[in-house]
């Protein structure tokens, strides 16, 4: 447990200090939201209809862009190998690093999401529903992404490969995340989609721990 906390605090410190890029995903998210009305026009109804899916796709891309930082630097300078020498199991180290990653990408995005929702004319309960779905779903995005990040660790310039591996696996998250918000907008019950989203994140947790650690071992061994 001490190893877990140590890795978590270390990664958080690295992220918030100079060159860490903790808020970069949030800025990316804001830029995407800016481009959309410029691309499709500022019609209120159109934007409001597209907003749930759009914001979810933007969130998925923002998480995706943060993934290559997750293990890469520590792998290259050898600190990842040092961490495996301690008593903490590799699964726990993966969890600590993903949690630190989520706290600096998924969480800021979730907290700021109501404002972006308002910009795209998604208001009231629907905006709050968006925040709730992001709160439940983005940890899952980070976890699933961690598997692919660990798999592509030894691939030079693996960024494009990483997105090819991850984006098909994001399909269910985007469907149920945006689906819950769209259901709320249409006045339907969003409970089923929320349960599914929670289930997806829980499954991602189990998968990421085992597959992620196995992939790391593969690249370290």
């Amino acid at each position, binding site marked *: 447990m001490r190893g877990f906390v140590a890795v978590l605090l270390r990664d958080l410190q690295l992220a918030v200090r100079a060159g860490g890029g903790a808020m970069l995903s949030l800025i990316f998210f804001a830029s995407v939201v800016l481009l959309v009305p410029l691309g499709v026009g500022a019609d209120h109804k159109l934007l409001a209809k597209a907003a749930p899916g759009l914001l979810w796709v933007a969130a998925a891309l923002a998480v995706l862009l943060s993934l290559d930082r997750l293990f890469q630097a520590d792998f290259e300078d050898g600190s990842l190998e040092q961490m495996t020498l301690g008593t903490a199991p590799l699964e726990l180290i993966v969890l600590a690093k993903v949690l630190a990653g989520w706290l600096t990408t998924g969480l800021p995005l979730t907290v700021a999401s109501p404002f972006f929702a308002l910009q795209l004319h998604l208001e009231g309960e629907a905006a709050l529903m968006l925040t709730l779905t992001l709160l439940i779903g983005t940890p899952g995005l980070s976890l699933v992404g961690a*598997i*692919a990040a660990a*798999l*592509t660790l*030894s*691939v030079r310039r*693996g960024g494009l*490969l990483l997105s*090819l*591996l991850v*984006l*098909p*696996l994001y*399909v*269910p998250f985007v*469907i*149920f995340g945006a*689906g819950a918000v*769209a*259901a709320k907008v249409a006045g339907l019950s969003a409970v089923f*989609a929320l349960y*599914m989203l929670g289930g*997806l994140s829980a*499954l991602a947790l189990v*998968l990421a721990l085992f*597959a992620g650690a*196995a*992939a790391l071992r*593969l*690249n370290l061994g």
Partner: protein
Amino acid sequence: MWHYANPKTFLDTASRFEPWLWGLASFLIAGGLYAAFFLAPIDYQQKDSVRIMYVHVPSAWMSMFIYGVMAVASIVGFAFKHPLADVAAKAAAPIGAAFTFVCLVTGSLWGRPMWGTYWEWDARITSVFVLFLLYLGYIALWRAIEDPTRAAKAAAILCLVGVINIPIIRFSVDWWNTLHQPASVFRLDGPTIHPSMLWPLLVMGLGFTVLSFALLLLRMRTEVLERRLRALRLRAGGG
């Protein structure tokens, strides 16, 4: 199982079986195509375009079946470190991707006269499209990692994560479809298919299966020989 871990034994056995598989596949597919074009009746609604089904549906079967083959090979390769299983998984992926592509293209060509559009975001089309992307990602990962043992393990992990995800993707796309579209799309197949249409379809399905195995053996032999060549080159280069 371990008998064939010896590349020499495998190469000999595979070369002996392969011509038979090619012959059987040609016979079945030629017969199936003849039946599909000349014996099977035209559909009262779809007219002659129903004949696309005899290529489309077996391709769809193969696209899923080969992913299953890859998954089994990945488990055997990852858990028992069987070298031939890794080769099988690697060799199967492009075959599966090709059948998935054929399935998408024929489905699109059938959709134009039937639905009036080349592409409909129907639940099936969408999930086959996702499956195609999963295949491509798997192939790309194999190509990106140079060391074959490491690449095999990484690809096996990816394949198994994909196996767990495919039913979830399928289910979520189905749910999405009911939310966004009325179920107005005409279903291509169903339990009500007439026997005169069913038997050419099954012959084609069997032919495609045998063809897949023939291609698989061919690709596996190529891979084994390529690795041998690589080892020889390394030895020659090392002095």
